[in-house]
């Protein structure tokens, strides 16, 4: 440490954390603290966190007293190397100078830089894509790029234009994309999980479409669906699903199938609009997000904003897929390419808003599971790292069937499509 003081700030410990309370200072002003030693305890969203000193020095001043609330990033304290080093406005300003302020919590939980990720480079758009968008009158910033390095290609614009033909209005000025496959049988509506689009069900659709009218939804902000806007929550996502059902199947309820966050939406719908739900299938569901799930989503948002879809897919692979899939190099690489092609259809802004919705919903329905009236299948993955509570959920829902696919990863529909299809069709046919 030089004469420049080290500043301690309120960390951002979770996606939804906006402020925290200083519970207790563990070091008195004037005392020396060693790097790594406990400095203070904060509380946020009913969780307490211990904050360590990032540098050795003397605690010279605290700016927030015990019991007081401060927003994330707010200045909490200043340390100096010596007990009598000057600590005035100039010294604090010097400490402010670094672009990244030292953050006491960085060791335990990496803080988010900001809710809205910076755009690091100009998005590449192929001239042919630009020309076509101009001709069709489409806004290019809505079109996700699947070309090398995320370049928006002519095919992306064509796909977006085709997708806009499939839009279903869900409220005034907002429409979502609904893909349809199969003509016969009862309607089955698929709701994708966090950060993915309807293509994540691609491996299930052909078999399902032989016996059912398959509807697959792209939620707000995903694919060609209209942007999610601020204040997105799971209730809103469920209301969108209700609107889609009213549009696509006005006469009869539909079989609702959701994966992960899509299962949360489906569960919310089953609790709030039971008359629309012929049966419920929860694939790798959660009602309370685990720290690992939240941390994964946090990283997902950050990587999506800063790195290529290929890099994001590679990051997600060990969290989403089974050892069996990961060990099969050809299948793994093919799966990664498919995943990377779909990931850009969920832009960073949608990820941020959806992450906030997920965080806010987490825990709110834990006690409501016994109220689920729909005939329910819980389809769980035996080696699920992200939503390990599926079995408990199945037990809490009255008469729920449960199928656990041994060794499968969280992204069940991609990881073990055959087993998922079998369990799903069995359930739907009995329902």
């Amino acid at each position: 440490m030089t004469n420049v003081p080290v500043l301690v700030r309120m960390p951002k410990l979770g996606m939804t954390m906006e402020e925290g309370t200083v519970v207790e200072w563990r070091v008195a002003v004037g005392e020396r603290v060693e790097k790594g030693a406990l400095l203070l305890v904060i509380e946020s969203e009913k969780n307490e966190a211990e904050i360590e000193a990032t540098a050795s020095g003397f605690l010279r001043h605290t700016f927030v007293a015990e019991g007081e609330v401060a927003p994330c990033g707010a200045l909490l304290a200043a340390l100096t190397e010596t007990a009598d080093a000057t600590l005035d406005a100039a010294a604090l300003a010097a400490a402010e100078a670094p672009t990244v302020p030292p953050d006491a919590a960085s060791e335990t939980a990496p803080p988010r830089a900001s809710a809205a990720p910076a755009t690091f480079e100009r998005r590449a758009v192929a001239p042919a894509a630009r020309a076509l968008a101009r001709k069709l009158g489409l806004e290019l910033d809505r079109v996700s790029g699947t070309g090398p390095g995320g370049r928006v290609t002519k095919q992306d614009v064509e796909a977006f234009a085709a997708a806009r033909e499939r839009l279903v209005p869900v409220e005034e000025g907002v429409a979502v994309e609904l893909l349809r496959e199969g003509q016969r049988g009862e309607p089955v509506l698929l709701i994708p999980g966090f950060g993915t689009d309807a293509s994540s069900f691609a491996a299930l659709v052909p078999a399902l479409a032989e016996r059912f009218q398959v509807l697959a939804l792209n939620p707000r902000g995903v694919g060609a669906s209209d942007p999610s806007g601020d204040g997105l929550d799971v209730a809103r996502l469920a209301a969108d699903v209700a609107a889609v059902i009213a549009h696509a199947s006005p006469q009869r309820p539909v079989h609702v199938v959701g994966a992960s966050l899509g299962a949360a939406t489906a569960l919310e719908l089953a609790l709030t609009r039971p008359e629309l739900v012929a049966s419920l299938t929860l694939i790798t569901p959660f009602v309370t997000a685990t720290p690992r799930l939240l941390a994964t989503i946090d990283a997902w948002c950050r990587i999506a904003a800063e790195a290529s879809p290929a890099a994001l897919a590679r990051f997600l692979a060990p969290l989403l897929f089974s050892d069996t899939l990961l060990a099969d190099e050809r299948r793994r690489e093919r799966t990664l390419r498919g995943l990377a092609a779909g990931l850009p259809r969920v832009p960073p802004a949608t990820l941020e808003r959806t992450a906030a919705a997920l965080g806010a919903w987490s825990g709110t329905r834990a006690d409501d599971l016994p109220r689920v009236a729909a005939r329910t299948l819980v389809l769980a993955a035996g080696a699920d790292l992200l939503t390990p509570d599926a079995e408990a959920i199945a037990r809490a829902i009255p008469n729920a069937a449960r199928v656990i696919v041994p060794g499968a990863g969280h992204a069940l529909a991609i990881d073990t499509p055959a087993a998922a299809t079998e369990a799903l069709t069995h359930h739907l046919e009995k329902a």
Partner: protein
Amino acid sequence: MTQQRKLGFGQAVNEALRIAMETDPDVILLGEDVAGGGTREGEDVDEMGGVLGTTVGLVKAFPDRVLDTPISEMGLIGTAVGAAATGLRPVAELMFIDFLGTCLDPLLNQAAKLRYMFGGKARVPLTVRTVTGAGMQAAAQHSQSLYWMTAGIPGLKTVVPATPHDAKGLLLAAIRDDDPVIFCEPKSLLFAPGEVPEGDYEVPIGKARLVREGSDVSLIGMGATVRMCEGAADQLAKEGVSAEVLDLRSLAPLDEEAILATLEKTGSVVVVDEATPRCGIASDVAALCVDRGFDFLNTPVRRVTAPHAPVPFSKVLEDAYMPSAAKIVAAVRDLRT
């Protein structure tokens, strides 16, 4: 119906020369050893037929019209330009295009300019046949693809056929053209056989040839690289990529409409040239794509060329120096991933 036969590239050239001389008494050939100048006393006068045997047999058929010249490119090309300007329709052989430097002035400042300088009252119906390219271990001074130099001179036309069929048809068109035409014979193709119709036909100068249709990427080649493009297209087809192949055939004039048409169709262009990259045909085509075809571009334009270096003699190095189907496939993969 003319029957389809297979001829080598050099045989097709020979046949075109014979037909041109049969149909027009003003056509003469001149060059180093074109009349078998290497022949020794007592041997058949026509043993050699040029250093690569391309003109074999012609001096017997047209004894007064096939002339061996001294080993002076300035002398022979200067003579040919003068003969063309004064009424004949000469076909001069510049043994290798590498020797262009020794006879540049008659081409650059005379043949290319006379029609213009005399207000259209003069014409220079000259054809210069010349061997180009690498691939036969002829080393740095006999392996260059300098057609970009002649293509860059207003007033000269430059063609590079890729097949025996086009060699015959383009040579007949070149000889009958009233302007000077540089006719390039890629060394690595000289003995490659292909179907050649009997009889007299012309391939129009300035028209590219669509070799195969595709929808995902356009491979644009010329001369020796057309075969490489076709090989790459075969490989890409196995990978599910549909490649269109366009053979430029004529470098000056350039068939800009054909280039833009294939670009519009696929949105993606890889130009393949065995010449060096700077100031070359590949750069020229790339510039055209960006300039006039910008709104068609779905990917960057990629060039696959020789490096900016002399052609190596070593077989291993020469192979590494040349474009190849594998390099084209790699470029296409790179554009798509």
